[in-house]
């Protein structure tokens, strides 16, 4: 019986450990659950990479005023169509002009076969390019500065 008493005293520490580990893991899962839900409620702006396009002086004439800044949450299509995330209602912008997205630490820009083309720092792009902060992007002559 003394062996049992000894075993039981040892196990009392084990039980305490298991119970608190249980409580800890439940709290952790609840925490993750709540975090996921709050991100869902905030419309995915919390954990997603953010960048923005800031209009700068262009040589083309524009028909409608531009916003002071266009935010990009992880992925954005730029174009005239209403399905685009950033809509630019100009004649020289194609319906789907270009797209910008974030993937594993880098921002990418791709021209979607637009008529007037897309240029980065004055260089017209033919393929996917990696964007750096303060790059100047031109959509058919309409200039923006890419900012993080």
């Amino acid at each position, binding site marked *: 019986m003394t062996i*049992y008493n000894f075993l039981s005293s040892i*196990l009392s520490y*084990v039980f305490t450990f298991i119970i608190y580990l249980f409580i800890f893991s439940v709290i952790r899962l609840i925490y*993750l659950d709540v975090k*996921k839900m709050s991100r869902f409620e905030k419309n995915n702006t919390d954990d997603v990479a953010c960048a923005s396009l800031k209009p700068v002086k262009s040589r083309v004439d524009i028909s409608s005023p531009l916003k002071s800044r266009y935010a990009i949450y992880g992925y954005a299509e730029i174009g005239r169509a209403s*399905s685009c995330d950033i809509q630019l209602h100009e004649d020289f912008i194609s319906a789907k002009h270009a797209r910008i997205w974030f993937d594993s630490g880098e921002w990418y820009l791709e021209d979607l076969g637009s008529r007037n083309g897309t240029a980065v720092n004055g260089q017209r792009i033919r393929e996917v390019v990696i964007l750096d902060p303060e790059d100047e992007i031109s959509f058919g002559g309409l200039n923006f500065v890419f900012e993080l």
Partner: protein
Amino acid sequence: MSNISGAGRGRPVVLLVLMNLLGFGLLYFANGFNINIIWVGLGLLGLFVIMYAVLTLCKMGDKFIVPMACMLITMGVILLCRIDIEKYGIKQIAWVALGGAAFFVAYAVYYNFKYWHKLWILYFLGGAALFIATLLFGKTVNGSKNWLQIGGFAFQPSEITKILFIMFLSCHFSGCRTEPLLGLKPRYVTWLGTYVFIGFLVLQRDWGTMLVLFSIYIFMLYVYEKSRGFLLMNIGAASVIAILGYHFLHHIQVRVSTWLDPWSDISNKGYQITQSLFAIASGGYFGRGIGNGSPGYIPEVHSDFIFSAVCEEMGVFGGAAIIILFFLIAYRCFKISIQTTDAYDKALSFGLTVMFAMQTFIIVGGVTKMIPLTGITLPFVSYGGTSIVVSFASLGIIQAISAKSERGKNLEGDASNQPQEDQQ
């Protein structure tokens, strides 16, 4: 992100299984290699695994409440098997199995039936009928007449009344019933209903349940009633009743005097509470180990005073773990109550949560001599058929509410996704 949370999903259940295996393995040695212990442990384990599997596979709402309740039951059953396996342990397992069935039945019935908010008169009459039946045919145990025997099957009607009472209050507080009844506004209907129920409980001398019902009423009033005057009036009335009760009822005077000073009459009136305090003190931080303590000295250790036994054999940390688990259950239930959009579901889940929380507060406070002791069971931990089954059934209702609101949200999500797909 999804990988991290995916890896940890099943961890609480693994720990629960480990706790059961170790606990019942130890009890197997303690009781002289009684093979019944193994069957009891395996039965309990099977029940938990089935409940958790059904819950996750069928996506029945919140996944955290049931494992936490199962942990509480594990601690309770291990203690009860250690106190007396034949008398309490095996019976408790049977009650837990019945409770598991009650959980799913309550879930299915509450989920599929849609007119709960219209049946307020049935809840009131059902509760009153149970009270009257108890008063007429009831059996007196430990000074309160709160047992009803039908055939060979005895149960406590006041446990069932608690749920009926919460449903009755929810009908009125949620605004599902607004037209006056016999010239009385809903707030006075609930007021009258509450005091009728409390009157019955005074006749039965069931102070614990009375305290639970009244605190549920006060909490719901605090949440739903706009005028603070009405709330203060109720609290004032309760204080007046309490003072009158103290002056005229010997029963309550004894309770208060043993609370203030149990040491002066240690061999008689203060015996139970002082033994409970000795047990808690002898446990220390980590407890003396299952089977090493002597919880048999405390009268009613299997039902009301189970918390003292937990403190003695699993230590203050074990007792604190029980309180933390109830805390977390209450938190999850309040969250379900906040998330759901249906007014009646909101009120009902809130009331049920307050019931769990108040019951825990009243009995844990009572056995640790923080408030005057009133006999009431600790949900999920104490021995008691009606208590276990009713606690599980209320958990089933909360689970159904959670499932409803979660699935409702998914439906909305699908609806808002549809137009986007059309455009592409």
